[in-house]
């Protein structure tokens, strides 16, 4: 037996040139489509290639790693079921079939001139088996996808006619391929036919049911052409259909800026402008299509509408008028319609002012997005242009005004900000100028009597461990985090620069804070304005103190191990998703309470926001449920009587939800520092030394 592949059996000799002519036509259509796409983005092919090269050169390892992880291994795609498995079936099978077809092309159209043939012998048998398996997988994947879209119809998945056309095309590609193979093996049986197991089975079936299989001969060329045309049509339709994600997603991921997630873009830098005498840019943020450059158009175009972002968006879950998918699709469609249009993008589909204000900047959408779309940065830029135009309601403008006037978003007196703290003998930078850590209290704990307990617990821990620290006292002001998240970039930068000057004036090198919002803004945003400090979240420091044995453990505390209420832990977005702080707070909760942390359904990377982020602590929007109440239900579902938190805003939101649902007796909300402080032996020394 000498198995060998036959090229184009059963087809007339003119088939080949005609096929290549049609393929050439499809390639021309593909080229035109790509050209139009690039023109819509506003980038030329050479610039695109240059951008790719520079992205590669700046960080080659990360470039390779993220492409490998998200486009080859498709880690995020596979995270969710059943979509992940269906996608893998279709993706892998198509990749194998494409490779198989390319091998034929190579052998027949290139290597034959060198008298080389590799589709023979054992390799050919393996080839046939693998390609048949791929075909079966493709049919399975497409049928599952159709079943999901047409029968299961998950709410987050919008099915348009084009989605069905693409699936139908793929299905026909596979079915017609097997039909051809089955007919061929029925007409001209070969000894190695069983290796093409699916086609062989089909051929046996045909022979079994038909008196004379040759009767099928006239339809063979028709099926053959429909197979070829389906493949070529797919090629030509690549830039026009959702299939463009085969190219746009890898491109988007390849070009992704290597900035940390928690950092928003900086449209101008007041410090640099002051130095250079430059002028502020005319408009900032995004109001019309020309404000979206080609990279960000590509970013929008990478969206394939899988709708996963909608399934995790807390604002959407609360019934607010925000759909992250709708926002991205609305922007994408409006820009595609009129790439140079001067009209406002607000009002384009789901892109509304209320949608823009509804976002809590929790980044759940970006975390789950397999395409690397930057939803939150778009929200930030839309807010920036709204703020620049004064399109805010009084609550948003009031909070910005209070931040500037009173140095805190509450509008409470700045001159008595820390009286409650200083009266307890906590050292200021004047009392302890040699401090190691500058303990930044933040506005929430400065003004909310409940949240002051978090700072006091932290102070107690620092004292017990003998950490050298100091506070700014009444000189501390808001970091400006909410201003930045609300889109008031200028005010944020001025506040940040004042803070940086103040901190540098006291020789601060390390900042300790219990507030993840302050942490994130110090960590990611301040360095760009010249404020490079080492920033430590209190969970990190306390974790270190526990593990180096610097905290005196109370024996009484240890005795209650496991005897207290069941515990769970709520991830603050700014500590978790934005800064990967997942393990330390959990270990601390466990250590302090003695019980295992019962995880909620949505935890860690998938954690569900408390509703306060992105400036949402300071205003309210129409909604059917409160985000904090939704989270409270998840907490209650664990059966926990105690929820650990690591953010004063989460504490305030969840405690408010507990109060307003009357569950004070069932559930306690405690910061990690409060839990740890309960386990301490009283500190013998005075504070701060």
């Amino acid at each position, binding site marked *: 037996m000498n198995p060998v592949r036959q090229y184009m059996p059963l087809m007339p000799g003119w088939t080949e040139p005609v096929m290549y002519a049609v393929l050439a036509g499809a390639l021309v259509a593909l080229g035109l489509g790509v050209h139009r796409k690039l023109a819509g983005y506003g980038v030329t092919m050479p610039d695109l290639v240059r951008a790719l090269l520079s992205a590669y050169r700046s960080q080659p390892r990360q470039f390779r790693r993220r492409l490998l992880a998200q486009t080859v291994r498709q880690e995020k795609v596979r995270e969710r079921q059943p979509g992940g498995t269906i996608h893998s079936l279709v993706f892998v099978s198509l990749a194998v079939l494409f490779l198989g077809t390319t091998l034929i092309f190579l052998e027949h159209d290139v290597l034959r001139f060198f008298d080389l043939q590799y589709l023979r012998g054992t390799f050919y048998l393996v080839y046939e088996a693998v390609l048949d398996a791929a075909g079966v997988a493709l049919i399975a994947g497409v049928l599952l996808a159709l079943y999901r879209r047409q029968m299961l119809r998950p709410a987050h998945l919008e099915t348009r006619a084009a989605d069905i056309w693409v699936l139908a095309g793929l299905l026909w590609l596979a079915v017609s391929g097997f039909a051809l193979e089955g007919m061929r093996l029925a007409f001209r049986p070969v000894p190695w036919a069983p290796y093409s197991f699916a086609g062989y089975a089909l051929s046996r079936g045909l022979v079994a049911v038909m008196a004379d299989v040759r009767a099928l001969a006239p339809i063979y060329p028709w099926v053959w052409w429909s197979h070829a045309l389906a493949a070529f049509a797919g090629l030509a339709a690549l830039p026009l259909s959702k299939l463009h994600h085969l190219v746009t997603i890898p491109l988007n991921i390849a070009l992704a800026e290597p900035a940390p997630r928690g950092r928003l873009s900086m449209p101008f830098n007041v410090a640099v402008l002051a130095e250079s005498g430059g002028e502020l840019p005319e408009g900032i943020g995004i109001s019309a299509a020309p404000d979206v450059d080609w990279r960000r158009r590509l970013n929008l175009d990478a969206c394939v509408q899988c709708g996963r972002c909608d399934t995790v968006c807390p604002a959407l879950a609360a019934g607010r008028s925000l759909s992250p998918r709708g926002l991205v699709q609305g922007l994408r469609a409006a820009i595609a319609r009129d790439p140079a249009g001067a009209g406002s993008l607000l009002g384009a589909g789901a892109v509304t002012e209320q949608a823009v204000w509804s976002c809590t900047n929790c980044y759940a959408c970006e975390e789950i997005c397999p395409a690397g779309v930057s939803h939150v940065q778009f929200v930030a830029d839309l807010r920036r242009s709204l703020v620049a135009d004064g399109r805010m309601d009084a609550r948003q403008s009031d*909070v910005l005004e209070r931040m500037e006037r009173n140095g805190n978003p*509450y509008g409470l007196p700045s001159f008595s900000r820390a009286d409650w703290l200083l009266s307890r003998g906590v050292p200021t930078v004047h009392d302890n100028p040699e401090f190691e850590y500058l303990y930044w209290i933040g506005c929430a704990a400065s003004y909310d009597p409940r949240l002051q307990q978090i700072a006091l617990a932290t102070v107690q821990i620092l004292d017990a461990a003998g950490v050298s620290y100091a506070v700014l006292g009444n000189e501390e002001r808001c970091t400006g985090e909410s201003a930045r998240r609300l889109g008031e970039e200028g005010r944020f930068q001025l506040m940040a620069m004042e803070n940086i000057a103040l901190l540098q004036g006291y020789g601060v090198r390390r900042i300790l804070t219990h507030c993840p919002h302050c942490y994130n803004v110090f960590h990611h945003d301040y360095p760009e304005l010249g404020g490079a400090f080492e920033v430590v979240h209190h969970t990190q420091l306390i974790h270190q103190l526990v593990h180096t044995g610097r905290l005196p453990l109370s024996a009484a505390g240890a005795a209650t191990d496991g005897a207290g209420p069941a515990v769970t832990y709520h991830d603050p977005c700014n500590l978790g998703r934005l800064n990967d702080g997942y393990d330390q707070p959990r270990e601390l909760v466990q250590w302090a309470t003695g019980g295992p942390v019962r995880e909620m359904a949505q935890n860690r990377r998938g954690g569900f926001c408390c509703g306060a982020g992105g400036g949402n602590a300071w205003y309210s929007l129409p909604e059917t449920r*409160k985000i904090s109440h939704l989270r409270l239900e998840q907490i209650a579902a664990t059966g926990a009587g105690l929820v650990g938190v690591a953010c004063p805003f989460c504490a*305030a939101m969840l405690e408010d939800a507990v109060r307003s649902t009357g569950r004070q007796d069932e559930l306690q909300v405690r910061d990690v520092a409060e839990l740890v402080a309960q386990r301490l032996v009283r500190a013998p020394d005075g504070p701060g030394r």
Partner: protein
Amino acid sequence: MSLSTLLFADTAEQAGALADWVRPLAGAAAPVLAAVPAPGVPAPFAEDLCPPLADLARRQAPDLILVAATPLGRELAPRLAVRLGTGCVSDCVHIGRGEAGEVLADRPVFGGVAIATVAFRTAPAVCLVAPGVTGPNRGESSVVVTALTPEAGGPGRGKRVVQQREVERGVDLSAADRIVAVGRGMARREDLEQIRELAAALAAEVACSRPLAEDLGWLGAERQVGLTGTTVRPALYLAVGISGQVQHVTGMKDSRVVVAINNNRAAPIFQVADYGIVGDLYEAVPALLAALRLSES
């Protein structure tokens, strides 16, 4: 030495209030000249009123130009000052004269914790005064009112009024002089009736803390005081069964007199209250109501 004054207001009534307010400075005898927009122009633009007002000011050469701090006045005053090559002070609460006769204007700064006195080096002094500062028109001053016709085809020609709508608002807490606010201490929705009665007896508006509006829906969002509601500054704020979360205090801390009723002596509301009743609101409210009715009769 009296201060020659020119007034600008939206209406003659407002101009009278400004004149009464400035009378001690301007001198009682001479009538004060006031300009108001000519009737018949429904929504004049500040940029079109500015040139005729500046012309008037140049002819009269007053020492002081007082502008009523309405939306129109706020936009007009700085334009006028620039056109006259002088300065403009907004939010004036008091106007006086310095030793050299210069105009001194007092205005609150740093959110009202301090008063800055601004001395004008140029004349005329353009000052914005809020209607709340002047008080009502008592008709004590004689005012000569001139109608200003906006300059046709003036700088405002690029704009036109496309729609005019009344602002729909059932209740405006921010303008209320007295407020009775109720919080989570209220056990049942029906008990709100007691609060309404108390508010009626005090001629006050009913307000509430966040849970009553957002979570329970007992009162509308327009009655919610606090961070995510309205910010109020009434003369009297009676907080009934409100614990005083910082989010609530932010919205009412600037009230002149705060009275709190709460059964928890440690409730933070007592830290901002001028008077406090530690007790059950179901006892305190009827008692207050009875006392109010007694004092009425």
